[in-house]
Each structure stands twice: as C-alpha cells, then as structure tokens.
C-alpha cells in the first residue's frame, strides 16, 4: 500500500479521497490554488502544497507543479479525482514517468475512450450496442444527409472531441441540416481545437443510465450495477439514484454484461463508468465511458456497500479486487442531490459567495459529502457544486422520504444562493416519485415560479421577526459603521442585549 497520496483536485472529491486515505491508514497531501488556502480539502489533509494562482489552468492543471508537490512531500501516488487531470492521458504518463503511481486506468484506456469516434468504433466492434449513426467522422453536408436518410431524423451532430454534454447539436429536419453542419464544425474547432464530428440518431425521451465497472491489474473485471442520471439541467446531472426505477432485471443483467465487455475491450483497470442512453422501449446504447470516479459514486456505494474510492487505491497499489461479481448485490435504494451554488430562479446561473450559516442534515440513512464549511467562500473560479447529499432507504419511497427530510434539515445562507429549494421541488414532483422521467424532465416541468414560497402567514411572521431582531442587532453592533444610522434606532431594550450577546458569543 502507498505511504502518502497526493490528491490533484479540490472541493468535495478531494475531501472524499482524503477520507478513503484515512480509512486505509495512508497519509494525504492536498494541493491548493491561492484562492483555496483555507478550503476544506486543505483543512482536512495531512499535508498541503500551494500550486499557483486561482485559475485552474495556472494551478490545478499545472502538471509540473503537481508532480513537484508530490515529490516535495514524499507522496508515492496521485489521485486525480474527477475533472481536472482525471481523464488526461498525458498527465497519467507524466506521473508514471516521475516514478509515481497514477490512481486511474492505463493511459491507453483513457485515450481510447477519450476519442468519442474511436470509442464508438471500438465498442461496436466489441459487440457493444451503439446509437445508430455514422461509423466514423463525416465531412460535408452530403455525407451527413446520407446517414440521416438511413437512420431517419431527428439526428445529433456530435463533436468527436466533445463529451459530457458539450459539442452537440440536434437536427430535426432536413432543412436545418446545412446550417447545422457548418456551425457544429466551426464550434467544435473553436471549443476543442478539433473540428471533426459524427452523426447519431437522436433518441427521443432518452434516459441516461450508466453502469459502474471495476477492474484490477490482473484483468478481473466486474460491474456494480446501474445508476439512473436522467434528472439533468443544462446537460448536467442534478439528481442521481441507484437502482434505476426504469430498468428490468433482464435489462440490468444485459447492461452489466455489456459494460464489462466494454471495459475489457480497452483493458480497463480501476473504476470506470459506461454511460448508456436508454429509449422508451428499453433499448440501450453506449454513449461514452468515463475513465474516472464519478460525482455520483456514493449512490452505488450505498446500495452495494463497496467503498469505490478505497478500492481504486487498492487496485492501483496492485492488490486484487476486494470483491468478485458474485459478492455484489444491490440492497435498498440510494438517491443523491447535488447542491450547487446557483440560482434556480434565474436559469441556474452560478451564484457563489460566502457561506455564513451552514447546518448539514444528520440521522438515519443520510450521507453528506461537502466541500465547504460555515464561513467558507465559494469561489467563482471553480465548479459551483458545493456538496452532495445522499439518502438511502429500504426502497425508493423510503429513500425519497429521507432525502426530503435531509433537504428540510439543511440550513445554508449567506452571499451565495443554492439550489436547495429546487431539490425539494424535484422530490415532490409526481413524475419523479413515479419514476416516470427522462432527460427532458427539468426542461419540461420546471418553472421558477414553482419555487415561490407558500403563503403561510405564521411562517411569514416568524421570518420577519427573525429578520427584525437580526437587523436591530446589526444596527447596534459595534462593527456597524457609524453612519448606518444606529443612533436613529429604537430605545434601549432587552433585544439589543440579546442580539449583541448572540453576535459576540464565540
């Protein structure tokens, strides 16, 4: 086992990896940008090294500095988390060349799955179902039209270098084809530096269902069942769960087998995810493989009982998988809500800022993976996801009920705005509760007015009373600027004292 692991990431996933290190008795090294000196992952780690200015490309994406930090602290392995360097074969190679272990798949597997067109070809060759479409990249309107004729509209034009919901364009009719071909090529060129694209049939009412796979260095490859990730906004997952309320046991078995086949086709090692699109007829198609740990891994951990991050480290250290396929079973149901610093009333625009009060939910069946703390600044520089809540229940109903309870216990306020109330809205939606949704769910069902506070006169009175006391305290507090009109306020009273005590109590 490793002695010390550097985590080339930040936020909740860095904290998650630190926890896995603790559980293994391995020391952890955080890296941090100047914006993150007091970030939670720095507070939680055993060691910490500064790697540059706030923009990620000047710090967290500086290969040399990360490797130098590992050397300076005597780390013998690097965990990339998700995002940043996690699917960067060049980084993985650089780590290996520095004599350190990259906790992830072999660079070749990253590369094969990183090129969406090549991956599609490879998967088709391995017998993995792919969405009908062009066998490879296409050039020009006519080539696209030929494929469209064969598979039928609507179709998706997809950038070969895209992925994660980026670089896609839907074409519903032949008349829109010409302009779409022009723009997708130039957009792909400007966004990814690679203008190649390919064509897939557009799956209507698609569900996004993915299968967790795991392989060790000896070639043992298993799957840990599915995750349902269809609740998305702006092509980003918001709520995930496992099992999927949609698939049948037969489909689960088939998807698991296909996923293992896909992983084997690239000689995969470690934790990976095969993403599928499923249509209303329960056909499923390979979408892409994420060659890293996923944000939503906790729901799989909760239903299988397997610590995936710990297993990543063990496998990277050369140990055999600590479980066989026959050891694995799903128990109960788990749901995860991603807490974002964003404003669901304003089109989910990021709304970072300081967190002034924070109380996380507790109690049976609740798991919290936070990247922040009370008093932390949520920075503009990075992903607005600040925490994940997960709830486990014996069945889906219990999991939803517990998630509702957890969301109702969570207290967060400050400069930032969060999507907390939005999650409460989702958990109350009849279609969500019925499991009847696809990736269009939020776009179809959600309207900001849905989050308007209910007209409960007593609650309004309580809120205004609390605000009154806080404002009065503020106006009387020594910290308030003198011109703020403190002297104009009401006569001396017990409230002032009360408020001041609260304010100054340490």
């Amino acid at each position, binding site marked *: 086992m490793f002695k010390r692991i550097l985590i080339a990431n930040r936020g909740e996933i860095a904290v998650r990896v630190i926890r896995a290190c603790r559980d293994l008795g391995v020391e952890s090294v955080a890296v941090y940008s100047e914006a993150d000196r007091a970030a939670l992952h720095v507070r939680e780690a055993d060691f910490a090294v500064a790697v540059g200015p706030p923009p990620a490309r000047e710090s967290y994406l500086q290969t040399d500095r990360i490797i130098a930090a590992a050397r300076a602290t005597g780390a013998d392995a690097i965990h990339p988390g998700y995002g940043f360097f996690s699917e960067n074969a060049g980084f993985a190679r650089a780590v290996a060349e520095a004599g350190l272990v990259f906790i992830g798949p072999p660079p070749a597997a990253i590369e094969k799955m990183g090129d969406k067109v090549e991956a599609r070809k490879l998967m088709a060759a391995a017998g993995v179902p792919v969405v009908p479409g062009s066998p490879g990249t296409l050039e020009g309107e006519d080539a696209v039209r030929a494929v469209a004729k064969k598979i039928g509209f609507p179709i998706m034009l997809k950038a070969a270098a895209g992925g994660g919901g980026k670089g896609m364009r839907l074409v519903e009719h032949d008349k829109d084809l010409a302009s779409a071909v022009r723009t997708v090529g130039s957009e792909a060129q400007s966004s990814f530096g690679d203008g190649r694209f390919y064509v897939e049939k557009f799956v209507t009412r698609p569900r996004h269902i993915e299968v967790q796979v795991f392989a060790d260095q000896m070639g043992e490859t298993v799957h840990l069942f599915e995750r349902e990730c269809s609740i998305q906004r702006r092509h980003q997952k918001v709520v995930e769960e496992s099992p999927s309320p949609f698939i049948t046991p037969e489909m689960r078995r088939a998807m698991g087998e296909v996923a293992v086949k896909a992983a084997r086709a690239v000689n995969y090692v470690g934790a990976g995810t095969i993403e599928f699109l499923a249509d209303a007829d329960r056909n499923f198609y390979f979408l892409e493989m994420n060659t890293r740990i996923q944000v939503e891994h906790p729901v799989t951990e909760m239903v299988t009982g397997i610590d995936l991050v710990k297993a990543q480290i063990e496998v990277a250290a050369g140990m055999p998988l600590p479980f066989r396929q026959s050891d694995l079973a799903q128990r109960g149901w788990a749901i995860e809500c991603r807490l974002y610093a964003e404003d669901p009333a304003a*089109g989910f625009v990021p709304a970072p800022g300081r967190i002034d009060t924070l109380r996380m939910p507790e109690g049976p069946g609740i798991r919290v993976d936070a990247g922040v703390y009370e008093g932390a600044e949520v920075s503009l520089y990075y992903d607005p996801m600040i925490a994940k809540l997960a709830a486990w229940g014996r069945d889906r109903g219990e999991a939803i009920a517990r998630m509702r309870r957890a969301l109702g216990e969570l207290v967060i306020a400050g400069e930032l705005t969060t999507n907390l109330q939005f999650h409460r809205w989702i958990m109350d939606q009849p279609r969500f509760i019925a499991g009847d949704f696809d990736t269009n769910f939020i776009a179809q069902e959600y309207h900001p007015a849905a989050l308007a506070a209910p007209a409960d006169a007593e609650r309004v009175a309580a809120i205004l009373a609390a605000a009154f006391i806080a404002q009065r305290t*503020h106006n009387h507090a020594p910290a308030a600027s003198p011109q703020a009109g403190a002297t104009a306020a009401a006569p001396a009273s017990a409230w002032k004292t009360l408020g001041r005590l609260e304010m100054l109590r340490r």
Partner: protein
Amino acid sequence: MPMRFVATIDGAEHQLEVEEIGAHALRVKVGERQFDLDVYPAGRAAFSILIGNRAFDLGVVHDGDDLVVASRGAATRVTLIDTARRARHTGAGARPLAAGKAQLKAMMPGRVINVLVKVGDEVAHLQGLVVVEAMKMENELKSPKAGKVTEIKVAPGQTVEKGDLLVVVE
C-alpha cells in the same frame, strides 16, 4: 409603541409592525394579521420561534443590505425598511430603496450580451430583462417583480461586477 417597516420577502411587499411585549415576546402584525411570538436565540445567528405551539427554526445572516433568513430547506431574502426613518430621511442622499422598487443586480461578474427591455416597458414577474455571459454560459436574468422598467444601468458589451445594479423595476 410598535415599530413599522416595509418588509420585502422575495419581491413581495408586506406592511410590518413589531412591538416588544415581554422579555422574549414580540407582537408582530403582518398586513392585517397579528401574531404573538416567543423568540429565543439558539446558537449563533439563529432563533427558535414559537407562534402558539407551532415551532419555527430560523437562521439569519446579512448579505449587504439584505437579510437572508434560512428556514430549513430554503433561504429567503428579506429587506426591512424602517418607515419612520425613511420618512425622516426623505430627500437625503443615500436613502434606502423606496418601497415598490425592485433592483435587478448582477449575480456574478460577466459581460452583458443583450438588454431585452427598455425604460417604460411593463414587465411580468420573472420576465427576462438582461442576458449576461459568465463562466462561458449565457444567463438570462429575470425581473424580481411585475412592474414598469424605470432605469436601465447597463448596455450590451459592458462588463459588470457582482452586485452591480442592472435594471430597476417599479
């Protein structure tokens, strides 16, 4: 004697009267309805409030001129304008925002791509007013209330900082 406020909760205005009637007791009148509240501090910046037997647990923090009241599972932005003080200050320079006005501010630094309204337009609650590009995404910022656009402070192409005033709706 009760203190009077114009209270705004998430864009909705209320006439508020508050009177201290005991060591931990407040009498609160919201519009025409009156309630007696038992208010206790519960840790830092939080209060346990009983109205009759009904229990509320509320955290309160300041964000600029706003108060953010965190009830479980939600956070509500509140402003309280002291009616008496506003009257005294009428005509003064930095007087508080008049009741009935609502400001659309930039939630984050970015670049204004488009302004969708002009001064004098009647707008609906949550109607899009300004499009700001930030973090590589275009974000349509929506009206905090129904009303008439009285001021527009930005133009397309302009860079804005978090908190900058964009549009006033009255």
